[in-house]
């Protein structure tokens, strides 16, 4: 049982899946004791995972060109990619915007929202640009394992990481496989 280096990123999602990850509570310590090494994640606030990362966990759908780059970087640097949560697996709630044009979307988000007084669509070059369509991660890169759920239960995440740590291929079934 060797060490397993895990990294995660957070694309177009609500961070609920990372909350579920933290929801493993003391089982997280158990996993670390078993050899889990947490590398670049939104939790550790490191942006770029090491090149020899074993498991890359992706939360959220791919909505902008930034997400696309990050996801591709994960694929290059990680041996095993896990799509975590409905947005990464299916596209999820962010794909609701696929029914509208980009212009409608930005206007609704930044100008006509009820709580907005004088709205302005941000134009900074540093902000990611929306892709024509919000996509599930497997439409951009090859995904090795899927954990659906909104959010997936801490039990499901724990089960998958434990199986990987113990050198088995996980298989989600029963209560662990949920679409909602």
């Amino acid at each position, binding site marked *: 049982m060797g060490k397993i280096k895990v990294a995660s990123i957070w694309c177009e999602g609500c961070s609920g899946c990372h909350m579920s990850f933290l929801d493993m509570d003391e089982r997280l310590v158990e996993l670390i004791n078993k050899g889990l090494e947490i590398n670049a994640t939104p939790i550790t606030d490191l942006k770029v995972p090491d090149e020899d990362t074993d498991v890359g966990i992706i939360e959220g759908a791919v909505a902008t060109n930034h997400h696309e780059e990050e996801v591709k970087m994960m694929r290059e640097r990680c041996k095993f990619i896990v799509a975590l949560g409905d947005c990464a697996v299916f*596209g999820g709630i962010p794909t609701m915007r696929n029914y509208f044009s980009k212009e409608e979307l930005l206007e609704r988000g930044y100008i006509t929202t009820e709580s907005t007084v004088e709205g302005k669509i941000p134009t900074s070059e540093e902000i990611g640009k929306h892709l024509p369509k919000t996509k599930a991660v497997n439409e951009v890169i090859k995904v090795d394992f899927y954990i659906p759920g909104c959010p997936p239960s801490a039990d499901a995440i724990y089960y998958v990481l434990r199986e990987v740590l113990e050198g088995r291929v996980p298989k989600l079934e029963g209560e662990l496989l949920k679409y909602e």
Partner: protein
Amino acid sequence: MEKIRIRVNGNEVEVSPDKTVLQVLKELGIHVPVLCHYEPLMPQGSCRICVIEDRGVLKTACTTPVEPNMDIKTDTPSVINSRKLVLKLLFSERNHYCMYCEVTGECELQDLGYEFGLDHFEFPTYERRFPVDNSHDFIMIDHNRCVLCRRCVRACSEIAGHYVLGEMERGIDTMIIADMNLPLGSSSCVSCGLCAQVCPTGTIIDKRASYLGRELQSDIIYSNCDLCPVGCGLEIYKKKGANFIIKIYGDWNSDVSYGVLCKVGRFLSLYDNKERVKGIRLKDEFGYRRIHEDDLLSLIKSKLNNAIAYVDGSLFNEELELIRELFKDKVYSIYPTESPIPTNINLKDLDNGSFFVVIGVDLNREYGTVGSFVKRNVIGKKAKLMVVDKGFNSLAKIADYVFNIKDLGLALDILKKEKEIIVIYKSLSKDEGKILESLSNARFLHLPLETNTVGLQKLRIKHDKVSAENVFIFGRNLEGIRDLPIENSFTLIFTPYENNQLYKGDVIVGVNDGFEREGTFYNLEGKKLRKEKVLKPAYDVIDLKTFLSYVLGKTEKVS
């Protein structure tokens, strides 16, 4: 019938030849997943989830009859892979993302996804946006969720007989439509709601039931509807630990309605917002004032001499019997109770009818379940229909013959030539009754005015207008007391709903109604049916049965 021998997963079995493969496998306890198949509907075999392998060929279990020498295999890789591929394709067509769907948690497509362990969409999705039809009062159709199983289309025609839903276009462009692609709200839909009951996904949704709770969170109570004399079987979903009903389904096992319901039974009973009579009110020189139940009891005891009772057909047998005991033969019905020609046919026999005569009643508007039985035979099985009415009747458009009631004599010539006819009527004049009784080939179904009219008949309670010193009135529908000679009487009214005739009462007592009440009644066929108590009364009202038995000294305490 002689049994045939087939092989199922390598084992020899003997089965009857008049069954489909799916039925046989079900009897053998072998699970076969289905989606478009729904037991009471004709099998169609369009979704291909139920495929099995027979001698190397994939066949749909739901539509394939068993035949000798079959070698059925249900778990070969080709069967599993075919089912899985179909499921993946179904999930990729339209929007089957569960998170923001109303039925998530009791969706048959979702269950199949779990069963086959689908953990992602293999094919790209979310390409097309389909319309959402929110034009109907009770039902919403979200075409984005549709899997085109046509259960709704089949239920609407085969079972409910309305023939409103259909489909247009082909393949991936197929759309479920109402009439000639009208919004459901402006179509000829009569709101029976069966389509929402059979829909496997979140496409056809009962608007009121949305987000109120899942089947797992409900107590399911089987009861009979007491809103008209048909007495359809209800499957009531009451939220566990709460005092409200999520939804009402038609009970497929009911031997009255066989799953059919009408707008009234499924929806209107839950949308009821009529003003209730609360507490006990006594009239004095200053108007009405609330009095206590004990005061009411002593008042009643002092008024029982020289008293008569008026009842309506909303009362259950138990209540009527107690009233009978209290007032002996001085009990009268507010409304007429007689059947001009006695009923001599069961609702079930309507399905064997070849010629229907409907007199003076629009079955799309009232007695909807009888309407479904007639329509599914007239439109679906080409039975003949004659409509006889005074004015507009929406059944006329599917009728073979339409007569004005004045010309009943002319219609008789046609009726005499038929082998067997079924006459369905609501009320008849004496002459009309005589004309129809002369038909030797006719069987009759009387649609009584009120729920328990037949119960009133059995207790020999007759419609009459009698006056007395003290008058007790019991009932839900009090429009009829307008004509009663009760001006100079001391009047006590026991009713659940406020009514503009209530000013005639010297004492007005609120009683429970609807799902707060239990009891038995006789439906139009004369079957004794039971209405179950589902909810606790949310108002300060009395239970008539408990109260009357207390007055009679049968029970100790009034709850």
